[in-house]
């Protein structure tokens, strides 16, 4: 999404806050027939009748406390302060059953909307259905782009992993590399699998994969990658799917003096530094700050103005690419934890 579009949405959001309550009520009733969902409309009417109360939103992701999600969380917080709504943020540490529980807990506190990441849509389907029955609107973010409609979400804010992966694969193929190693740091994560599939489709050569220990033990992960590079000297391109793993890949490659070109997903200050130093070729930036910020805005728009976004399609926040050409500028922003 371009900056211009972003600004437009923000403007409209600001404009709404000056609307009259009664006018809102009338528009909501009219909008109800358009949507063809009387239950939602009735609930929405009830809600705007209580519109004096601050709007509240719950964001529940499958994050595991790592740097990527910290940026999402910042986006959520900024949207809350910009719009004057209250938000809560919780993480399920990659456990789908825990995420379902967190959603149920959030729903019990009757927020106006919830935004969830959906790496495992079937696990949270029931919880989301219960939320929608209670008149709570749902938006999905980050993962679950193919299931957001079935989950009853208004839209999906994220990056289609397939397209992102394809972009990464293309860039690595353009370097002339013939054997790509993809580093998995989480098991059973559909989003990562989609990135892998995308990269495989555009990389014209051999593609291998390895599952490493992950962010709870970067030292071991580095060791495992290095072992793989030692064992297979034909690897000349590496794609990491997470910034810490990108650094692990860089260290591993350095250790064996491998000339492999490295690409990674998502940013961290270390990754940006590595890009500036030429150790990492690029980072696929899904601009996760927006994945925290935009869902709040969209839900706010819906709650206050029954606006929909996306036209039935997901709202894409990426892929953006950070490479040597723009790393310096992005670096300043990353230091603030917003990229």
């Amino acid at each position, binding site marked *: 999404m371009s900056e211009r579009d972003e600004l437009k949405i923000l403007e409209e959001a600001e404009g709404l806050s000056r609307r009259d309550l009664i006018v809102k009520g009338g528009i909501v009733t009219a909008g109800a027939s358009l949507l063809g969902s009387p239950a939602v409309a009735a609930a929405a009417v009830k809600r705007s009748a209580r519109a004096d109360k601050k709007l509240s939103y719950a964001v529940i992701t499958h994050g595991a406390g790592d740097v990527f999600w910290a940026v999402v969380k910042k986006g959520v917080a900024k949207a809350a302060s910009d719009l004057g709504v209250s938000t809560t943020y919780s993480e399920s540490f990659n456990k789908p059953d825990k995420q379902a529980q967190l959603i149920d807990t959030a729903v019990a506190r009757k927020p106006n909307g919830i935004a969830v990441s959906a790496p495992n849509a079937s696990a949270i389907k029931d919880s989301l259905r219960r939320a929608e029955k209670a008149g709570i609107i749902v938006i999905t973010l980050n993962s679950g782009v193919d299931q957001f409609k079935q989950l009853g979400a208004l839209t999906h804010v994220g990056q289609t992993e397939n397209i992102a992966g394809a972009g990464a694969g293309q860039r690595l193929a353009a370097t002339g590399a013939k054997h790509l190693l993809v580093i998995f740091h989480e098991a059973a994560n559909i989003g990562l699998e989609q990135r892998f599939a995308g990269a495989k489709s555009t990389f014209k050569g051999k593609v291998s994969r390895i599952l490493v220990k992950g962010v709870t033990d970067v030292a071991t992960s580095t060791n*495992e990658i290095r072992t793989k590079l030692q*064992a297979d000297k034909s690897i000349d391109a590496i794609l990491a799917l997470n910034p810490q793993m990108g650094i692990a890949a860089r260290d591993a490659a350095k250790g064996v003096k491998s000339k492999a070109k490295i690409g990674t997903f998502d940013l961290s200050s270390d990754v940006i530094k590595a890009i500036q130093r030429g150790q990492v070729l690029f980072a696929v930036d899904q601009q996760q700050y927006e994945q925290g910020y935009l869902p709040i805005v969209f839900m706010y728009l819906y709650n206050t103005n029954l606006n929909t976004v996306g036209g039935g399609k997901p709202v894409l926040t990426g892929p953006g690419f950070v490479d040597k050409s723009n790393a310096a500028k992005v670096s300043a922003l990353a230091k603030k934890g917003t990229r």
Partner: protein
Amino acid sequence: MAIESARHPTRDERVAYVGLLARLFQRPEIGSLVGVVAVFVLFTSTATGFAELDGFARWTDEASNIGIMAVPVALLMIGGEFDLSAGVMTGSAGLLLGYLVTHPDWNIWPAILVVLLFGMLVGLINGVLVMKTRLPSFIVTLGTFFSLEGLNLGLTSHVTGTVYISDVDAAHGYGLARTILGSSFWSPYDFQTRVIWWVGITLVATWVLMRTRFGNWIFAVGGDATAARNVGVPVLRTKIALFMTTSTMAALLGIMITMQLRSIQAGQGIGREFEFIIAAVVGGCLLTGGYGSAIGTSIGALIMGMATIGIPFSGWNSNYRSLFLGIILLLAVLLNAAIRQQAVRSRR
């Protein structure tokens, strides 16, 4: 009533001869020795380079990650207690170190000292809580584990806004500290300095366990704390000392990892605590306490390191790493039990 006179000493020579072989089989390490040979042979046959210095450097690196902590955890287990906070403690220590050298900008050496003291303090708390409440140490240290996990994530994000601390290498005194604690040697193989520390810790622990008074006390408080207390062994002091040792060693490992990586994640170490216990059990330690070996534990850590590295080396699907480790653990435990039974039978 007749009193039996002293027997003639020549009988001892016969006993000594039989004892040697039977004694070998009674050692707690025998199971893990068989295991490590089997695993080594397995991976040497499936992966080229596993048995060479390249491979050697990699699996000793991983083994030291487990072994440095598994040994003190094993001593604690022999002493009859568990410490489930051992894994997350490495993260807490690394984070504290990272914080001290990047925010108030301390010199690395006083920061290291403070972190080690912090380790001792956490160990002291663990020990005192367990002994005074008489609750199972499994539960008490589980509480410590969750507390530290929450603190690690919460405080880090509060202080830095993200979930890791980096730029540790900008600290004064970093260079020398890194050389001693977190560097590698013998290029191009790059053995980690940690490996030397691990071997040293194993040797010291073995000596303490087998050849000192305190080691005798460790076996006693783990085997039967009441009996030990009745003969005058200071049970309280011994157990608290063991808890302090695990936490301080965890702090040391956290420091080493931070030195090596120049940064530390808030989630560091979580999940490792069970790997330490697995290594100890594979090495012959009884879960009920009173029996075990530091060398066996290190051999167990070596097995796990070989497995973790051998799998990518062999090109196997790394999703199966956990399955592999689970099978190894089961086999090792069964083997240990069988050998122990055999040893007891051969006495009669």
